[in-house]
């Protein structure tokens, strides 16, 4: 069988930006290289960072063209009509990321709407990719410039399909499909629905919806997120096919806790989507009956201060600890001491951190509103708001060694299915079955 020639549109990418989206794109890209000829268009790349058999084309390293490249004019207002950015502009920050993303509260920043015309790109279009961050107040401008540059470059390249990752690259995907006629695949790692809530509307939502309507194939990272694409966004279920993320193997280790209490870990941005308030409630509930537990919230976010005060008010400040932002080594150190992982996300497309915890032999208690619940099928689950059930799951795992051991054993089986290679294979199968590519 012939290898498909794929043009991927990415936004975050290691080692410059190590958010959840970047990690997923890297893992997927590595695995896809075995099945396809792959080029990644990225706003920023590190020239010293190579991925075997994948062409990484960073717009921060393009020479400004002497004349305009590409042609065509498209009006972005066709599908994006709202003038503020309602979504969390740092949607993929996890603890373990570089300083440039470590900003406390840009959650509801407003910015200028994207300019209307998508003309051929020139030197001005490349300037935004020299800046340190990919988000910020001018994210709309960057998204627009990215689309102009990507579409201009795509016109002169050979590929069979374009595969875009999340809303920042969706306008580029649509424009490339329009100019080249190649099929458009959208990979949905996260939606405005997750980041900003079910009621969120705005131009990010508009882009997501318009793009999914125009796409030939939509690949959400879980069945859960697929139901949001079809239900909430009203996308034709016939073209929505989920593919679970994989997890890179890690060198897991265990280390001795320097204190006698058990430890329960929350890892993630302290923002509404991740349910940190529920974690606090769960902690208070568990501590009512069992003081021999320390709860740790690793990460930062706009809810940090109110969470700290709420913890003090609930009288658990000596058992609920906030570490702030942590680098990957520190996160791993925490994992190596953790007894139970808790992920009470309100809406979590996937939730890779629960798999990472499983790799450290930590049983997870996760919300039913998460994609990872479909992968860690043996994990204990509850609705994110069901604090009582979450607490009783945690109590059981903390106090019953046999239950703890059985949960660890079962999660080993779950992890076996969770590889990027399996994900890449399924994606290529979808290319063939749904798009007739190769």
């Amino acid at each position, binding site marked *: 069988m012939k290898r498909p020639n794929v043009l991927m549109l990415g936004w975050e990418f290691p080692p410059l930006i190590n958010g959840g989206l970047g990690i997923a794109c890297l893992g997927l890209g590595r695995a896809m290289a075995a099945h396809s000829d792959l080029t990644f268009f990225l706003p920023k790349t590190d020239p010293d960072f190579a991925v075997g058999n994948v062409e990484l084309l960073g717009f921060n390293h393009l020479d400004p063209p002497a004349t305009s490249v590409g042609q065509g004019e498209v009006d972005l207002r066709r599908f994006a009509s709202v003038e503020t950015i309602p979504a969390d502009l740092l949607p993929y920050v996890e603890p373990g990321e570089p300083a440039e993303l470590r900003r406390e509260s840009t959650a509801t920043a407003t910015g200028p709407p994207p300019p209307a015309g998508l003309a051929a790109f020139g030197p001005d279009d490349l300037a935004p990719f020299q800046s340190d961050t990919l988000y910020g107040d001018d994210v709309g401008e960057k998204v627009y410039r990215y689309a102009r540059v990507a579409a201009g470059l795509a016109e002169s390249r050979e590929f069979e399909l374009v595969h875009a990752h999340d809303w920042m690259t969706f306008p580029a995907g649509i424009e490339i499909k329009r100019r080249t006629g190649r099929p458009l695949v959208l990979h949905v790692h996260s939606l405005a629905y997750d980041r900003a809530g079910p009621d969120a509307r705005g131009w990010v939502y508009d882009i997501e919806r318009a793009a999914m309507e125009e796409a030939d194939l939509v690949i959400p990272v879980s069945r859960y997120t697929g139901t949001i694409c079809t239900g909430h966004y009203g996308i034709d279920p016939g073209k929505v096919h989920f593919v679970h993320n994989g997890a890179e193997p890690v060198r897991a280790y265990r280390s001795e806790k320097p*204190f*006698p209490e058990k430890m329960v870990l929350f890892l993630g941005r302290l923002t509404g989507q991740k349910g940190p308030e529920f974690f606090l409630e769960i902690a208070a509930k568990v501590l009512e009956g069992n003081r021999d537990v320390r709860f740790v919230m690793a990460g930062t976010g706009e809810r940090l201060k109110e969470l*700290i*005060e709420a913890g003090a008010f609930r009288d658990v400040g*000596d058992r609920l600890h906030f570490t702030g932002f942590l680098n990957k080594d520190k996160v791993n*150190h925490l994992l190596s001491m953790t007894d139970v992982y808790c992920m009470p996300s309100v809406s979590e497309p996937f939730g890779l951190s629960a798999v990472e915890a499983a790799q450290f032999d930590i049983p997870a208690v996760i919300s039913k509103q998460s994609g990872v619940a479909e992968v860690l099928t043996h994990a204990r689950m509850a609705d994110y708001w069901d604090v009582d059930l979450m607490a009783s799951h945690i109590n059981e795992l903390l106090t019953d060694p046999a239950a703890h051991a059985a949960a660890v054993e079962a999660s080993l089986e779950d992890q076996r299915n969770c590889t990027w290679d399996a994900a890449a294979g399924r994606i290529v199968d979808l290319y063939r079955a749904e798009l007739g590519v190769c």
Partner: protein
Amino acid sequence: MPDLCLYFEAHQPNRLKPYSFFDIGNNPFYEDDALNREVVEKVSEKCYLPANAMFRELAAEHGGRFKMALSLSGVLIEQLEHHRPDVLASFVELHDTGCVELLCETYYHSLCFRASGAEFRRQVELQRAKIREVFGAEPKVFRHTELVYFNELAAFVEGLGFEGMLAEGVDRILGGRSPNHLYRSPNVGALKTLTRNCRLSDDLAFRFADSGWSEHPLTPEKFAGWCAGEEGQVVNLFMDYETIGEHQWRDSGIFEFWRGFPAAALASGCRFVTPSEAVAGHDAAGEYDCHEITTWADASKDLSPWKANPMQFEAKKKILSLEKAVLAQGDPELLHQWSKMQTSDHFYYMSTKGGDDGAVHEYFRPYPSAYDAYLYFMNSLSDLQVRLRRLDGGRGAAARPAGVDALNYRPARRD
């Protein structure tokens, strides 16, 4: 013409280091030694040394006619013993002029009375012993941390043998009366209360360097005139010693002011008295019925700088709740470490007040925010809990040594 009673408070806390979650169980040292040393060095150079020298000279110039009172928190004395014995010696020299009365307070500059009378008493006795050891003095007048005052405390302090106690002259308690009299809480026998004249005190403590103030620049003569013009028995000018040269910098002219003030005050007919002389020399002019806890801080003159938000409530409650467990260990070092965490400044740093008061909190806070102050404190507290649990480990409550009389514990000198 009223008498003048000057009193200065000198205190520095043992600030905590940025103690993280990863330190819990690993690191039994909570204090930021480098920072604390740096602050003591700085304040010594800017305030303690030059102010001590100045007041020593004024005492010599005016014979016995210039008098003042000082209180040094036990934790400051310790820090000076450790980092700057020369500065402590200069305090001793100042006291040796005979013009300085030393007052008593809680050794740890704490706010523990409500939670534990026994702990309060322990800290007062510790401070008495320290003042005796360093200065050879027996204080007769008491001032509590930040001038905390209320009826119940006044009665307790009288029971500890004090003749007088300082308080903020709070308008809502004075009810229109002047602070320039001695008063008495309704539930005490003979203890007299000296109420701070906050208007005149704050002229020197806060407004002196403010060039936008209509009375700026304030001269010794002008201020002496105001004092002489007051009615009543005694004008109580109480403030932090650090207002001289530290909160108000040298270039504000604060040293020149104090150098000239005694002569100007004496020339205008005022007489300087120490707190115990005021107590001995005047009858109480009325009842000061203070049910609520008052202090000299912020605009609200209450405990709100230390006890207003949930972080402050929890931190203070949890550190004091360890009293029995700590005493049961019979370990002087552990007891001392726990006691130092009661110092009021830790809770002051956790204040989330805004406005003018918030700006003052901000000025003193050695951390980026109130939340950081709380987290560092609670992490340190958690470590203390872990250590207590380990010390207790296996033996169980029955096997513990009986709590030895707390008053027998003395923190070991660190030098």
